[in-house]
């Protein structure tokens, strides 16, 4: 039996970028982009679920994000996660990878015993690939990045195939361990119809508070009790719940500063023509090699 915690993130769908998405100052206007489940995190969840299929245990998904990130937590429940936690607080806003990994590691500690922490290699909005490794560091556990496959799994040890330049290597680690996975490592399973119907009404504390706001007949405590009873409550952890050092959270705890934003427009310049012959092709290939586009 192995318990897993999966770090998931809701990200703007950068594959659907339109004209209004970039603001004048070059930052992303998130409200114009649909929010989606970061794909590599879904693969990470699939890894955790496969471990559960193999040896049993529990899968818990957690995300740090705004209230609407509950959407992907529900998706985790539909796929098969046993529990899902929303880590949210205004004080967490504007966090870079250092502050994010601090909050996540504290949340992981709070949630409890685990054999694995899984995360996607990186999120498509930041592309840093730092949050996983930094979280492992703060938890004081080993990490295996760029995982492609879990090979052997024993009670206190795991063997993993990970991608490296030009090939792969097989590494072994004691448990607990944090593993970040690549997008091709597994196909996330489809949503289960039964779980979808069972958990479609799952709500986080903030969502329940919204319900109460619009309706004087509802009381938050009663509602929470009712949702918990029906296993439809998505637990929510705030800075207070985690009892953490606020100066290490959010924008305050983030040493990363944007130095300059450059708007790059990719357009062709200096078009060249090559004749349609063997000679022309050679010239073209030479230039491509020179510009390091080929080779």
């Amino acid at each position, binding site marked *: 039996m192995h318990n897993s915690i999966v770090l998931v993130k809701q990200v703007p769908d950068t594959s659907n970028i339109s004209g209004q998405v970039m603001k004048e100052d070059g930052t992303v206007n998130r409200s114009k982009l649909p929010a989606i489940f970061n794909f590599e995190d879904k693969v990470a969840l699939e890894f955790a679920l496969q471990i559960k299929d193999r040896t049993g245990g529990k899968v818990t998904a957690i995300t740090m994000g705004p209230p609407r990130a509950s959407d992907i937590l529900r998706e985790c429940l539909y796929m098969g996660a046993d529990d899902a936690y929303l880590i949210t607080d205004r004080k967490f806003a504007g966090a870079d990878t250092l502050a994010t990994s601090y909050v996540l590691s504290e949340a992981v500690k709070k949630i409890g015993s685990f054999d694995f922490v899984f995360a996607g290699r990186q999120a498509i909005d930041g592309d840093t690939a730092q949050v996983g490794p930094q979280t492992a560091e703060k938890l004081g556990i080993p990490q295996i990045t760029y995982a492609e496959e879990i090979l052997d799994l024993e009670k206190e040890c795991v063997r993993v195939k990970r991608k490296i330049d030009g090939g792969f290597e097989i590494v072994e680690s004691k448990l607990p361990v944090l593993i970040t996975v690549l997008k091709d490592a597994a196909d996330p399973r*489809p949503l289960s*119809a039964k779980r979808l119907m069972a958990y479609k009404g799952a709500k986080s504390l903030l969502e329940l508070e919204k319900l109460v706001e619009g309706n004087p007949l509802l009381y938050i405590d009663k509602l929470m009790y009712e949702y918990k009873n029906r296993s439809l409550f998505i637990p929510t952890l705030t800075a207070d719940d985690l009892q953490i050092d606020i100066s290490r959270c959010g924008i305050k705890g983030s040493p990363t500063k944007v130095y300059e934003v450059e708007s790059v427009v990719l357009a062709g310049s200096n078009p060249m023509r090559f004749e349609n012959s063997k000679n022309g092709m050679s010239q073209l290939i030479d230039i491509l090699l020179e510009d390091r586009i080929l080779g």
Partner: protein
Amino acid sequence: MPNYFLDNPDVLFHFRNLDLKEITALAEDNYAQASQFNYAPTDYEDAMKNYEKVLEVVGDLSGNYIASRSADVDHEGAQFSEGHVQYAHGTQLNIKELSQADLMGMILPRKYGGLNFPFTIYMMSVELLSRADASLMNIFGLQDIGDTIRKFGSEDQRQEFLPKIAAGEHTGAMALTEPDAGSDLQAVKLQAYQDDEGKWFLRGVKRFITNGNAQVLLVLARSEAGTRDGRGLSLFVCHHDGTVKVRRIENKLGIHGSPTCELQFNDTPAQLIGTRRFGLIKYVLDLMYRARMGVSAQALGISQAAYEEALKYARERRQFGKTIYEIPVIANMLLDMRVLLESNRSLFYSATKCVDEKEKLEEFIEKRKAEKQPVSEETARLKQITKAANLLTPMTKYLLAEASNKITYDALQIHGGTGYMKEFHVEQLARDARITNIYEGTSQMQIVAASGGVVKDVLVEYFALKEKREYKGGLSRLATILKDIRALFLDSLKYVLDKKDTMFQDVAAKDLVEMYSYLYIGYLLLDEAEINERKVFIANRYIVNALASAQKNAAAIKGELFGDLLHADKILL
């Protein structure tokens, strides 16, 4: 990333206008199951939300996964070697994902692991899935052999077979056809016999068995030695164990992902379903309602896919300095396809609802009878609904399968030469469509099945009510046309009946059934046009065209087109 549920406004239109209140209440025991199963709905609104969410999953799987594997599945096909059948790689993945998504027992009760969904929602899923890969329907759609076991089998049999079907661990097949018993199932020979202890065994050969490699086989067999007709046949269920040999799989024109097997039963242990001698006359006939609707859904899915291909190609392909979409002749073809497609869908969901209601009422009545409650009111309604289902099921199968061939034909035509090439998807669709008007009863058999109700004019009261209704604005003109078609139909029917010539009646049946279908579909479209402005266009083209077709049908009957049948030997050199 297309979702085949969310990207199809017409399917959404039908979903939103489905009134399943009564059906769902009957199926859900007035929502009593919610206390037992966390995925059971608490009320009608909750049930509809469930259906919508699950259809989104089906649409996502269909549009984003199954469709992308369809060409490979077609190319690779199911394989056969050393007595073993293997699905194409893509088919294996499809089944795995559909099982993971809990979709392999959609209409089975929850206590056996099913979703307890209305038949109509299941059929909508089959439509979405068939648009992605028609051959997959022949595996996915066979989950409803589980429904036959549920309805007519014993509790032990249900426990033995249903949970594994619902979990996707086992698939099913209906082994009915034999070399000498195709359309004529009364001629089935496969022998069922009992040993001294009363255990049943099967011996003989079945041919053209769709998904015959399945783990669970429903087999129609002759249990009464010495009999020759349908009353000597019983239905059996058995495991596909070592005594069942797949002798070969067929090399087919289309639906390559679906293995069509020849099966040899060598003293295979089997269990009787229900009562002896009821195999064909009760259980297979009951199963046929759903099986025919399943093939209709498959045909509809193929039609949708072909229409999409044609529209996309017409908008991209440039000739004479413009897209061919801008050429009126091509646009007119596309309009015809679209109207045929949408009218098919209206008929389809009206028919699935009718079958759905029939089945739910049957169960309700059984239950009430067991509780010794009065059922006279429900029985009267069931009688009416059964009449309608007996007409609509074969009519739907006939029209949708033929339409699927027509739409794929025209879609390929719009592609011109490229459509004939393997690189274009429309070629596969045209091949896949071709079987739909053959299996599960040929079109000719569907006409025979539908003609009984047509000749008796079973919808006479329904049409009378419709004729009395007032339709607003432009729709009143269309309502008048439908009255004209009704007059043409009654006139033709009288002509046929007055002749008292069964041969003439047989060949005229096709025209009569078609005329009847114009009326039924015409009124469905009129009703839709009342709530949706865009549908006025669909109703208009359909009904105006229907009048021309009805005139042709009537002329064929009254002009004695079929008189030369008596001289067939002289004409057919």
